[in-house]
């Protein structure tokens, strides 16, 4: 097996570049990066399309129905489409395209997929309650020196460390 650590960009350089991207977001759009918000907008669009009356009566989706424009016409939706393309470009350059289920040899692919869905669901719920995920709440929040950003970061990573021992079989 070749040494994979050389295939990825130096993390400090990647950090500086990501910081510049984040700074550009602030400089142009006056806001940081995000991810979970784009999923929220997509879901709101689906709910409004499939069940318009239900959406109108919903305390969560209702606010979207009052706007004229579709929730898909949102900054984060376009940004996340860019993320998808950016990752594809990077994967193409590095030759990393491969359909695979990545998991620890100690667990089956099935266990990994169940854990992935469960983790995604928790992240979905948590990001709504916490007003953003690792990108929007923690990273961008820290960069703008907001209290919320630091609370989110400590809360997310602190919890993951506390529970790391319990879930170690999933990873090591």
């Amino acid at each position, binding site marked *: 097996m070749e040494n994979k650590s050389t295939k990825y960009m130096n993390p400090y350089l990647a950090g500086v570049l990501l910081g510049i991207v984040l700074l550009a977001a602030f400089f142009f759009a006056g806001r940081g990066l995000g991810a979970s918000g784009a999923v929220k907008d997509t879901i709101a669009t689906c709910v409004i399309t499939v069940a318009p009356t239900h959406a109108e009566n919903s305390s969560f989706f209702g606010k979207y129905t009052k706007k004229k424009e579709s929730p898909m016409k949102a900054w984060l939706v376009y940004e996340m489409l860019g993320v998808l393309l950016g990752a594809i470009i990077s994967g193409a350059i590095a030759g990393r395209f491969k359909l695979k289920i990545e998991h620890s040899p100690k667990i089956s692919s099935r266990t990994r997929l169940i854990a992935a869905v469960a983790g995604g669901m928790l*992240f979905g719920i948590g990001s709504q309650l916490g007003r953003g995920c690792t990108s929007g709440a923690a990273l961008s929040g820290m960069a703008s020196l907001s209290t919320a950003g630091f609370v989110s970061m400590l809360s997310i990573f602190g919890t993951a460390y506390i529970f790391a021992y319990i879930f170690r079989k999933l990873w090591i």
Partner: protein
Amino acid sequence: MGPLITQDIIGGQWNFVIAFIIGIGFGFVLEQAGFSSSRKLAGVFYGYDFVVLRVFFVAAITATVGLLFFSYFDWIDLSLIYVNPIFLKSAIVGGVIMGLGFIIGGFCPGTSVCASAIGKIDAMFFLGGIFIGILLYGESFSLFKDLYYDKVPVDKMVFDALGISQGTFVLILILIALAAFYVTSLIEKKVDKVEY
């Protein structure tokens, strides 16, 4: 001068184009750094790979220091920058739920999109999970509503909340980061390598 779109220096019709371009940069750097691998990401919690900590900390500090310099040179009006509002209780509880999601699922929303883009099936399932989670949250919002809007009076800016100046806080943050980079490099040497 900046933020350019907020002040109509660049027309609003460019907003989504710029969002898309910034997104490309975001996705490209995340994938280049290795954030498209859940086992690489999880390394930060088990001590075998601290790439998450390094990229995350350096990025936050680069952007923060950049904003301060931009402001100093009058290139940006910081009062027009979006600052996340602080709802302490929901931020903590939401963070705890996300932390659990991170250690169980191995991704966060942004990284799962990157990993899906290069064909990681586990990332696509994680992404599906996010959709289900947000839909469940939306449908049961009444249960979360009180917690979501519960407001404990805390300063919006972290340096105000801690009672120190902005500059002092950023300096302390940089020192913490440098210490963390050094300590984690020692830990990485001690912990057995994990092949992934």
